[in-house]
């Protein structure tokens, strides 16, 4: 049975060096959990962002938490490039594994299905493939002169995301964000922050059950209201545009980024 407790308790299983899977901006980014990990001084994380990232990856890179990053894009969207990501790539301070969105989904699905690889079309002739020695091209055994890419299964140590609600059995309502289910299925452990607890059993109502990740995939749940802030939690709250614009402005310099960290991450230490 999953533990429903404090944020710090929930994050205990996320240790230095682990392979951590997180979702894209519109699927429930666990920003308060991210700030808590930065405050804890986590190091050498291998971040797997499904399939893209924004503030979360940039913040963790700037705070020195990441050894490597596997994703398909990092950007602040309408607020411009991700400054710490861009700087780190140019300085060579993190190991970047550039990917393309469906490859990351497929690699997790391989793990979800307990198979060693998943085939994927596309990719052949792209430099994305050229730079991925772990991706293999074979001749389709069921075809003829038909090259196809095989992606090895990815099994994250921990999947971490933010969702609208969970019940006391650890069942988590994820709605249409079904890649969160695949992420949990594929990962050795799953940690979830939620806006609030649901009274009763999410699986007891067929309508709610349809959007629910069962508790037996979930190791820990913490209630963290506005836990995606300043990113959006779709159908619940929008992005905090003013805050993101401030981040984009500050993070362009090291001093500004340090100021942002101090003000919006470390100053919450007591929380």
């Amino acid at each position, binding site marked *: 049975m999953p533990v429903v407790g404090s944020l710090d308790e929930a994050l205990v299983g996320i240790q230095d060096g682990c392979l951590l899977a997180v979702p894209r901006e519109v699927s429930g980014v666990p920003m308060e959990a991210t700030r808590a990990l930065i405050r804890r001084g986590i190091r050498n994380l291998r971040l797997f962002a499904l399939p893209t990232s924004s503030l979360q990856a940039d913040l963790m890179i700037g705070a020195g938490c990441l050894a490597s990053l596997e994703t398909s894009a990092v950007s602040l969207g309408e607020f411009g490039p991700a400054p710490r990501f861009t700087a780190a790539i140019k300085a060579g301070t993190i190991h970047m594994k*550039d990917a393309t969105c469906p490859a990351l989904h497929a690699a997790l699905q391989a793990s979800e299905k307990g198979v060693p690889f998943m085939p994927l*079309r596309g990719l052949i002739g792209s430099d994305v493939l050229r730079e991925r020695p772990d991706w293999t091209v074979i001749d389709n055994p069921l075809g003829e002169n038909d090259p196809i890419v095989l992606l090895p299964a990815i099994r994250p140590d921990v999947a971490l995301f933010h969702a609208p609600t969970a019940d006391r059995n650890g069942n988590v309502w994820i709605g*249409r964000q079904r890649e969160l289910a695949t992420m949990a299925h594929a990962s050795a452990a799953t940690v979830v922050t939620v806006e609030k607890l649901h009274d009763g059993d999410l699986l007891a109502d067929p309508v709610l059950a349809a959007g629910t990740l069962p508790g037996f995939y979930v190791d820990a749940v913490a209630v963290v209201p506005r836990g995606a802030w300043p990113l959006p939690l779709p159908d619940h709250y*929008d992005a905090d545009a003013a805050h993101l614009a401030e981040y984009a402005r500050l993070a362009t310099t090291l001093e500004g980024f340090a100021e942002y960290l101090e003000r919006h991450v470390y100053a919450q230490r007591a929380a």
Partner: protein
Amino acid sequence: MRSGRPDVSTEPTRPEELLASVIADLIGDVRHVAVGNASPIPATAALLTRERNKLQGVPRPYVSLLQSRKHNFFTDGARELFDCAGQGRIDVFFLSGGEIDGQGNINLVSIGDYHHPTARFPGSFGSAYLYYVVPRVILFRTEHSRRTLVEKVSFVSAPGISEANVHRSGGPVALVTNRCLFGFDAARGRFRLQSVHPGHTVEEIVAETGFAFECPDEVPTTPAPSAETLRVMRELVAPELAEIYPQFTASVFGIGAQAPH
């Protein structure tokens, strides 16, 4: 939602409106158009196509704006767009590039040596897959310069053409810029200048383009959107768009801040 603006259909055509109109004509009669993030002009074009069809009683295309909640019909998570495209159900998609070269290769990753780049872009997103499997990919880049339209990209996020034995049911059909419209000839692997936008010239296009392209003797001027197209865009499309592109709709159509979220 129109918040007391003047009669919009008599205002002059904005450059964004011209481009949206050009793209809408490229979309054609299809079933499903998907538009990725940060693409307000393609989104305008896709909704314009749908609204014009609707006025003629044609109930298509589906338009999926991936950044929207309201205009996003996917319920199987972030992978569904790609699965759907792999099934051949996405007819039109839009891609751009930090660099685009004369063979239709796009670069969304970096400039210079990949391991020691001089510039870094966000990343390839889904391009290294969708470019292969969506039948009509419309390339779109508003900055038409030798910096963006290059002879050879530094990094191929996705190639414009593939070897004959590589599974490929899709690829580029056109490149729309702020200066002109190029068609793409997949058999020859090169662009062909198709029309020049009003106020621009062929000489300027040649001077500002870093790649060689086919240039007919006579290049028409890109036709301006009809009054009806402008009306549909301004009255029907703009309010729909304000949900996800408030800044864009405010600056181009004069609405957005008042739009419901």
